[in-house]
């Protein structure tokens, strides 16, 4: 099924080859290969428990694969940690959002890339909370999210408000490769639309490449150039969105369940 790179490998900002990952008895990923072209938006779909998040966590350095190779911008890398992946320009929106409940909205949004104060070009060791507040507010407005107060603790926010913070954190980072794990799960129609706009904008600027995990196929066809279907830890479909349709994808996914229902 999944021929890595099919020819134009030079363009691949990310190439994953023959990745496998087991958790004790559970085979989360079986010999998965996948590639992401420069300034491409790749949709990754699949059943619950198919292995999508695991794949993302491996590409962003949070988990180590049992076997397989990872190439970033053509060079093989052995990711030691999330920091390491970040240093390569990879940033992630996790399904669990990775927010700190007791911390303020803006500190969460700038976690690990805090803005520091400056005096005459010399940066101080102190946080520049004023700017972080301002920018946080700006980002949230652009995403059409109404959040009472960027000083509020994340614990006090609604599900969608929280997710918007996690998304903003990555989308507004200067990362060149962004992995988004179900970024619209808790988003309202309006807020979702705005995030999709943002993603499109980023892609059209041609600098950022993205892997987008989505369960809503309509969304897939709104923003993705290409779509991969992950089933039982294997990639069973890799097509440009132009060559497929919501119906086909649905069909593919639901078929086996019909079989299951039948048998």
């Amino acid at each position, binding site marked *: 099924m999944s021929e890595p790179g099919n020819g134009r490998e030079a363009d691949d900002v990310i190439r994953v080859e023959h990745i496998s990952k087991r958790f004790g008895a559970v085979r989360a990923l079986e010999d998965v290969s996948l590639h992401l072209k420069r300034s491409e938006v790749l949709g990754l779909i699949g059943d619950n428990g198919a292995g999508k998040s695991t794949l993302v966590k491996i590409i962003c350095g*949070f988990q180590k694969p049992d076997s397989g190779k990872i190439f970033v911008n053509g060079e093989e890398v052995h990711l030691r940690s999330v920091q390491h992946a970040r240093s390569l320009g990879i940033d992630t929106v996790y399904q669990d959002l990775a927010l*700190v*409940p*007791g911390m303020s909205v803006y500190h969460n949004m700038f*976690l*690990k890339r*805090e803005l520091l104060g400056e005096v005459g070009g010399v940066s101080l060791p102190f*946080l520049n909370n004023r700017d972080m507040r301002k920018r946080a507010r700006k980002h949230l407005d652009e995403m059409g999210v109404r959040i009472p*107060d960027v000083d509020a603790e994340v614990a006090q926010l609604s599900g969608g408000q929280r997710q918007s913070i996690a998304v903003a954190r990555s989308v507004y980072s200067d990362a060149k490769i962004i992995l988004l794990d179900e970024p619209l799960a808790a988003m309202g129609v309006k807020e979702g639309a705005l995030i999709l706009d943002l993603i499109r904008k980023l892609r059209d600027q041609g600098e950022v490449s993205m892997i987008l995990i989505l369960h809503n196929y309509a969304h897939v066809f709104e923003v993705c150039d290409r779509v991969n279907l992950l089933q039982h830890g294997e990639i069973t479909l890799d097509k440009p969105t132009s060559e497929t349709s919501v119906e086909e994808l649905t069909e593919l996914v639901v078929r086996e369940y019909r079989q299951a229902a039948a048998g």
Partner: protein
Amino acid sequence: MRGLGWRALEAFGNRREASIFVVAVGLIIYFSLRSSAFYSSATIKNIAEYMAPIALIACGEVMLLICGEIDLSVGRVFALTPIIMYLTTAPEPDGLGLPIWLGVIFGLLAAAAVGLANGVITTYLGVPSFITTLGMLFFLNGINLRALHGFQVETPGGSTFRKIFGGYPLWLNSEFWWALAIVIVLQIVLVWTRWGVHTVATGGNPIGARESGVNVRRVKIGNFVLCSMLGGFAGIMDSTRITSILPLQGGTDIMFLAVAAAVIGGTSLMGGSGTIIGGFLGVLVLAVLNIGFTILGVSAFNFDLIIGIAILGAMILNVQIQRLKNLGQIGRGR
């Protein structure tokens, strides 16, 4: 239009430490009314002396508790460091006969080493810090006893040394000023630096912090070292104040007081939240209670009884004030 004074008051009122501050002030007023002796410079000096070592250790414990760990062994480091200092400076054959400054440095290095060991064993070998530092607690006690053959020695150091660590500049004892300075610095570190934010994140959501690229292990180890060195520093100064070094000095008692102060000051044992200032105020409350009731002449058998009730009362009051407070601002719901 609300006046500026009011806004300032409100700003303060919104601070986490407001309630415990109110409690502390309340206690001070109470004791001042109960006994004229309490409202004397001698007593204030006294309270400052009582607070200093506990405050220093509380600072370290607050940082550790915030990032989700605890150090039970710091009370032994409190005794170890001056002992190292003594062994460095004491004339042969007891010691190396080196100058006092080296003694301080070696002492603090030893403290740092202990903290490093605690941190590495906890983060890399995965032993819960409660057990890591419990083991260290016993181990260090053994070391201290052996080092001094179970006996006590006089604290070394010339007059300048005493001035810096044991003197009374600006009316109060220097140890207190050191403590206060460190409290301020660490509060700034906690609120205004990356280290602080990452410490909070590490305790508030360890997995999330790692997912966000925070080097959780480094943060924890760093705070273990910090806590241990603060304990050691306190030990050096306190041994200078009481002019003798005892192997059993500090121990679990002072550690307990420090952790209690931290929690009283609003630091959560579950990690993720706390403030240095709060911890300092917690120490103040404990100091005022202890000194206050001693001045009132509470007799030996009644003392613990009354302290117990007082701690409970103060804390209940504290919590209720907070609840009232939260109604007025963005709260945590119910």
